[in-house]
């Protein structure tokens, strides 16, 4: 079993440096990102269709958020009528306590898990292990990552950082009676055989939720492997855990959102399995869980919700397209971020989950190139939100509205002063002329060590002649 460390990241820049120094991993991630980008592109040949779909996708998510309290109550009422037990958790600790309570009631020893990022977010495996319950990941990628004692590096493709040779070695070391073979089909069949025994033996199945439908009380889950169906059908008890933002109003909204989700995520037209779960086993039915639970988690989401601009963060449908197209993610990979959700979505979501104390480096880990916003299927303006979060983090703690956890935590007097001076110089032509004249005359005095900039780059030294001096000369020559 893996022993995972508690999330909070020691040093983002150190981890990024290490990631950039790892040639093999960089090649792997770059290759995977190129692959996913081209597959997505091929899925949307018609830009008008894509644009219309994104408008509708965004409208569906905005509608759901605008009516979130009512829809959550409708969802709860419908699910309860269907026989599903609904629980609410404000914090990861509460979510884990609910889970442990259910497990204890059934004397559970083994829990099989379908891919659930929210269970990663609350570090459920950790809590289960502490209580002596084996929590086994069953998504092939997550199973591999767990066997290696690591964490997923991508929300859709968790083992994207590993080669088949590394996986073959891992299986040889960890699984009794397995000899080295790096054929992908063989590796998958090994995983299948191990995990089928676990599915048959498990007491509890845990899953995430892609969308929860208020109209019908439906938990909608998509996947390719079938482990999600196993986890939600074979064990006596099924527990689904999700963030409070995952609700949609109408069943047919799911049909539209799913024409965006797999195409944006992995560039496939549709997933192998779309699983609509409406309740536990009814009298006379011969399989399916006897109990179905849903845990609705807040964990900072209400903070994002409270702000009209930051609320857009919750539109996310977790396709991962923003990371697949992010130049920063493509170079450092998911682990460097040190948080459950990496990449651009991780950067705008994590401050609400963890506070700026832990999540601020993520907010700065962006070039603001805008690729994430261009591909987002529900039109989240990610760069705008990043700038807003940077401002919130750097706001003067006295003046800050304190609306966000750790607002002003990154306030820096010198930085504030530098920007004041910059605004003064660049806002007034006469000052600017004087400043640039000084810079060109005394440029030779510029320091050769300019902090992080000169670690990998030549120092910035002002040119001896300004553009405004050179241009008139140029014009005379013409």
């Amino acid at each position: 079993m893996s022993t995972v460390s508690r999330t909070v990241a020691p040093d983002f820049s150190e981890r990024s440096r290490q990631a950039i120094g790892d040639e093999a991993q960089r090649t792997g991630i770059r290759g995977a990102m190129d692959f996913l980008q081209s597959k997505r592109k091929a899925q949307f040949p018609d830009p008008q269709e894509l644009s219309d779909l994104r408008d509708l996708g965004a409208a569906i998510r905005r509608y759901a958020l605008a009516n979130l309290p009512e829809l959550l109550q409708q969802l709860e009422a419908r699910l309860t009528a269907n026989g599903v037990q609904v629980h609410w958790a404000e914090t990861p600790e509460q979510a884990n306590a609910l889970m442990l309570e259910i497990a204890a009631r059934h004397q559970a020893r083994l829990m099989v898990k379908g891919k659930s990022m929210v269970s990663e977010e609350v570090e459920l495996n950790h809590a289960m292990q502490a209580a002596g319950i084996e929590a086994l990941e069953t998504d092939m990628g997550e199973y591999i990552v767990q066997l290696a004692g690591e964490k997923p590096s991508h929300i859709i493709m968790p083992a994207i950082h590993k080669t088949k040779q590394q996986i073959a070695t891992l299986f040889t070391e960890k699984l009794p009676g397995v000899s080295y073979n790096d054929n992908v089909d063989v590796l998958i069949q090994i995983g299948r055989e191990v995990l089928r025994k676990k599915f048959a033996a498990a007491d509890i199945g845990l899953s995430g939720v892609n969308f929860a439908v208020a109209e019908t009380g439906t938990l909608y889950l998509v996947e390719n492997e079938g482990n999600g169906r196993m986890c939600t059908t074979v064990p006596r008890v099924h527990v689904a855990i999700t963030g409070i933002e995952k609700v949609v109003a109408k069943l047919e909204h799911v049909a539209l959102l799913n024409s965006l989700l797999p195409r944006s995520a992995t560039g496939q037209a549709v997933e192998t399995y779309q699983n609509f779960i409406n309740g536990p086993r009814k009298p006379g039915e011969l399989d399916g869980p006897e109990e179905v639970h849903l845990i609705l988690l807040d964990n900072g989401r209400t903070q994002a919700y409270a702000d009209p601009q930051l609320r857009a963060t919750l539109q996310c449908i977790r396709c991962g397209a923003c990371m697949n197209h992010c130049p920063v993610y493509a170079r450092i990979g998911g682990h460097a971020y040190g948080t459950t959700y990496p990449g651009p979505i991780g950067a705008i979501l994590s401050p609400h989950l963890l506070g700026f104390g832990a999540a601020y480096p993520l907010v700065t880990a962006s070039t603001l190139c805008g690729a994430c916003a261009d591909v987002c299927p529900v039109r989240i303006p990610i760069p705008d939100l990043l700038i807003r979060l940077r401002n919130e983090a750097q706001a003067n703690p006295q003046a800050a509205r304190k609306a966000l956890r750790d607002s002003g935590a990154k306030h820096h007097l010198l930085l504030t002063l530098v920007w004041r001076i910059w605004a003064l110089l660049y806002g007034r032509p006469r000052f600017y002329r004087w400043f640039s004249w000084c810079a060109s005359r005394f440029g030779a005095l510029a320091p050769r060590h300019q902090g992080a900039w000169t670690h990998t780059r030549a120092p910035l030294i002002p040119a001896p002649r300004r553009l405004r001096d050179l241009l008139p000369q140029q014009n005379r020559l013409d």
Partner: protein
Amino acid sequence: MSARERILARLSQASASEPQPLPNLEHWQPRVPPAGSAERLALFKELMRSAHAEVHDTDEQTWPELLLDLARQKNVRTLLVGNGTDSVARLQSLDSETLHVMSYQRPAEQWRAALFEQVDAGFTQAKSAIAATGSLVLWPSSQEPRLLSLVPPIHFVLLEAHALHADLREAMRVEQWATQMPTNALVISGPSKTADIQQTLAYGAHGPKELIVLLCHSREVSP
């Protein structure tokens, strides 16, 4: 106050956004195939096959024999079927020395080990199908339980050719899903697969390794 009340209170206190109209999907034109049913069927078959499923044309009279042939080719010795339907009765009459046709009649937990280890193939009917994505719609029931289409390594599906919808939304509307959802509804678009190791596609991750569609062209709907 409970966690529920505190969460709902925080959400309700948040400043209301601009009112958002209920999105109107009427104008949404999904990537639907051409209107003709023959073209739609052709697209369905093409997409299913490109997702690594087999599609065989057959009719009301001959599909059990076709299934028998395919089962023999694939060395199926135990075929799991549902209970209480006409199709099941027809398949049970094919029970022989070489092909054991076994009916799913007891709760799964009473024979879980056998279900996981001794069944080579499962048989279900599809409720309908979707042309735009090449998908089958299954509504498992007490007659055709959920694990029948999941645990056996091979999944045979009988589909009436006329039960084809343009897309998922149309299936939801025509079949009125919103008012009569079963315990579990499924949309299946191929055999189980994964690309989790180096983006290399492999079939048979946890569910069926093979999905075999018997496309029944007769218009007589079996009761």
